[in-house]
Structures are given as structure tokens and as C-alpha cells.
């Protein structure tokens, strides 16, 4: 049945492409989560009236985040080609897509982290300080747990965006479903391959969103 509907689809290729997309998404989401969290916390703590209030550091970090956030992803990929080449020695393959994916997504997630942290009741941070908590304790035991639902729903949004980014990265040869749809589907005029790749991407996005929503609700005790 499937073979009649999608006569040109090579299922082994499709599976490999799916694996590559998942691989790129999972790895880049993981690193983006850590990097975005670090940058977001830095942005939060250096903003006015916070523990590390520092205009210069805040302005610098915030500018960097804004610059990388405003470059269209496809342009960023091209701009980062020399950097990727320097870092990995090649610009082809799944790994080669990772620097661009992370640099594109981490500033975006850092903004979401900042928004999440700003939602924390200032009084709770003050209470922790009044108990004699160190800044590291405040980060690990107040900031992160108290904003966890927002941090998780933020990383879900970011992961979904990253699936889209992997498809774009695919066009310049990173592999994955975007690459398959472009090379096998578009360039060879096999519409069914493009359609099947789209369906698989949709399924991945739905599953990501479902998992994200589930964990977010689970952690929210408000």
C-alpha cells in the first residue's frame, strides 16, 4: 500500500535520514539547553537590581544574543562555513551542522530562559538571600527549580524550531530529512519523497511537543 502511494521512496534512505534528523535535533537541543541556560542566567543575574548587576556585561551579552538571533538561519549557516571547517575539518555531514544549529538556537533559548527567570517572584530570591544562600545555591535551588516549567516549555519550542533548522542545514549537505527532500525529492522531481519526508518531520514535531507538554505539566506544582 505504502509503496503504491510513495513509489519512489527508498525506505532505508528514509530511515537513515530520519535517524540523522533525530541525531542532529537531540544533540543540538541538549547543548542548546545547557548553553542557553548559562547565557540566560548570566543575562538575568547581571541585569539591574540583581545579584551580579553589571551594565557592561549585561549589554555585551545581550547584544551578542540579539545579533545571533537576528541573522536568518540559512545565512548563519553560510557565514559559519569557515568556522565549521576550522572546527571539524569538513562542512559536510551531520556533525558539521551542529555548530550552526547550536549557535542559531542557543541565543533564542537564552531569551526564553531570561523571560522564565523574570517570572520568578523576587521575594523568593530575597528570602533565599536572607537565609544566607550563596549565589550558586540560589541558581541551583531557587532559579532553576522555580522556573522549571517555563524552562522546559521553552526548550520544547526550541527543539521544534531546531527540527526546522536541521532541514535547512540539510540543503547545504548536512544530511537528514531536509537533505533527502531537497536532493531526492526536489532535484529529481519525486514529489512523493518530499511528501513522505514532510510527514516524518511532522510526526517528529508532534512527538517532541507531546513529550515537552507532558513533562512541563508534571513539574508544575503551582
Amino acid at each position, binding site marked *: 500500500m505504502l509503496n503504491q502511494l510513495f513509489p519512489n521512496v527508498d525506505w532505508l534512505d528514509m530511515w537513515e535520514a530520519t535517524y540523522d534528523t533525530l541525531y542532529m535535533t537531540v544533540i543540538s537541543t541538549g547543548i542548546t539547553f545547557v548553553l542557553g541556560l548559562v547565557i540566560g542566567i548570566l543575562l538575568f543575574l547581571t541585569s539591574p537590581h540583581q545579584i551580579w548587576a553589571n551594565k557592561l556585561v549585561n549589554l555585551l551579552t545581550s547584544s551578542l544574543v540579539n545579533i545571533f538571533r537576528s541573522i536568518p538561519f540559512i545565512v548563519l549557516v553560510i557565514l559559519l562555513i569557515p568556522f565549521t571547517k576550522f572546527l571539524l575539518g569538513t562542512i559536510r555531514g551531520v556533525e558539521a551542522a551542529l555548530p550552526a544549529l547550536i549557535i542559531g538556537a542557543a541565543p533564542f533559548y537564552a531569551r526564553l530562559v531570561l523571560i522564565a527567570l523574570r517570572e520568578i517572584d523576587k521575594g523568593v530570591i*530575597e528570602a533565599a538571600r*536572607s537565609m544566607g*544562600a550563596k549565589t550558586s545555591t540560589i541558581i541551583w535551588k531557587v532559579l532553576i527549580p522555580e522556573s522549571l516549567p517555563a524552562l522546559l516549555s521553552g526548550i520544547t519550542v526550541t527543539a521544534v524550531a531546531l527540527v526546522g533548522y536541521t532541514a535547512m542545514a540539510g540543503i547545504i549537505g548536512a544530511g537528514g530529512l531536509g537533505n533527502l527532500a531537497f536532493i531526492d525529492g526536489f532535484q529529481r522531481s519525486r514529489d512523493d519523497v518530499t511528501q513522505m519526508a514532510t510527514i516524518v518531520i511532522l510526526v517528529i514535531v508532534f512527538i517532541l511537543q507531546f513529550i515537552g507538554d507532558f513533562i512541563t505539566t508534571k513539574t508544575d506544582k503551582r
Partner: protein
Amino acid sequence: MIELKGISKIYRTKNGEITAVKDVNLSIKKGEIFGIIGYSGAGKSTMIRLLNGLEKPSTGTVEVNGQQISAISGTQLRQARQKISMIFQHFNLLWSRTVEENIAFPLEIAGVAKAERAKRVKELIDLVGLTGREKAYPSQLSGGQKQRVGIARALANNPEVLLCDEATSALDPETTDAILDLLLDINKRLGLTIVLITHEMHVIHKICHRVAVMEAGQVVESGEVLHVFQNPQAEITKNFVMQVSGTKESKESIEQILVNYPTGKIVKLTFIGNKTEQPVISQIIKEFDVEVNIVHGNITQTTSGPYGTLIVQIDGKANQVEEALKLLESREIQTEVIDHA
């Protein structure tokens, strides 16, 4: 125990300097419940935050428990804070933690071992009357229960001082009284020094030993609660005293009485301590040829005894009324003749 010397706090903002606290000198004794009362913007919040170093004074020194809070920082300040706890108007509990985890938080900060922590948390839960609610999250608790968690959390590291930042302002009157009773009980049982800020005179007279009245960053009046009650000097203090003696509401009825009974005198009598139990009114009616009409009456309990006010109209021949007033004064009852406004 707590010494504030020459304290001023100036905030620099875009629109110029704002003086939140100005030339404050205060001395609070060990084991005392000290109240600071003032309307919002009077500088009370800044004052209480100076005591645990959340705010640093622009001038002057803050000494708590033999330590110069205004001079230390870093680890030293963090360790000092473990002995100066604070509870808050909006409780400031971590919603992501259960009751017992919230109470354990300051113990984690102090580096108390896990088994020890569990034992201490259990004691505290019993102390504040939250047994059975250990596993509940703050969102499942009432305001009064949340403040009990706040108090348990504040007591976890056996502090010397407890700072209360409008701790009952978000609670209904009944819950307020229950929380105040708990604070009073803790003060008596543990000998804890309590400093509280509030805008409610009710809180001051119910549990405080001494009070300071703040207005525009300055302490305008301070002393024993009963004494300040008796002889309010500043206009603002008189306003606060009216809050509890209820004389504000009676102003209208006095106006009405003055209209209805143009003869005689409207007199405000203030009774303190045991004098509230003397049958003075029936005495003046028996001894002199006067009529007494009660306009308003009120008794307030304070930590150092009851305090009552009575507003009466005394009518009769002028000399008889004078004699009656003299008798009242001879009984050490404050009398104040109220005239047409």
C-alpha cells in the same frame, strides 16, 4: 542586642536622590518584641532590611548580636544571616518544594546533614502546628498555613533574631491573631528577639513590648507600647491610636451628640491597666447631680495590660460637672474635654 546608630539610607535614582531612612538611632533589647509602625513609604521596609544586610546604610552602623552587619560581607554576612531570619508578607515560599522541603531549605544552606535535617524539620512542623501537611505543596495551603511554613523555615537554624516584614498584612483578622499568638509563644518559649514592621496598630498592641513610629524615614516617636498609647505626641501616632481605640468612627457620633445635647460636656476618658475595672461612672452619678450619657466605649488588650477609652457626655450644673471631672482625675483617669470642632 540590636543597635542602630545614625542610620541614613539614600537611594540614587534618575529623578534625584530619595532619602528612605534619615538619622535613625534605635536600640532593641534581647528577647524583646519590637514593633516599627508607619504607613507605606515611611521607610520601614528599608529599616528591617538593614538589620540583615539586604540593604546597606548610606551612613551609620548596624550592630546585631555583637556583629557589625553594615561592615561585613561575603561568607561572614551569609553566616550572620543564618542567625537573623526573616518572614514575609507574601510568605515567599518555593512553590516547587513541599512543606518539609521548604523548611529544610535553610538547613541545606547551613550544611546540616540529611538525617539531622529530617529530625529538625519534624520538630519544626510540630512546633508551628502543621503536622499532617508535610508533603503538601504551598499551592495547597491557606495563607495562614503558608505563614506557618514561613515561620518554621525561619526558625530552622535556631536564629537569635526574627524579622517580620508585614507578616500578617496579607491575612484575614482571625488568621492574623493566630499567627500573632504563635509569634508571642515562640518569643516566650525560645527567648527570640522579634523585630516587626507593620501598618496595623492592632499588631503592635497585641504582641509588642516597645514600638517606634516612623514617618518620612524618621522615627518620630518610640517607647513602651502602653506609654505611647497613652500619650501619643505626634499627629501620626494619634492617627494610629485611633485605629484601635475606634475613636475615628465615633467622631461623627460625637458631632451628632454635640448637636443633640448642646449642654454639658463631652469628655474622653482614658483608662490604663487595672483602672479599667473601677466603677467610676456610677460613682460620679451618685456623688454629684449630673447626668452621664455614654457615646462610645472600647477596651484594647496590650502585652502590658488593658487600655480603655470611654467617651461620655456629662450634663448638669457647671460646678457639679467640674467636681465630677476632678473626681475622675483624682482616680488617675485621663480626661479630655472635647469641644465643637
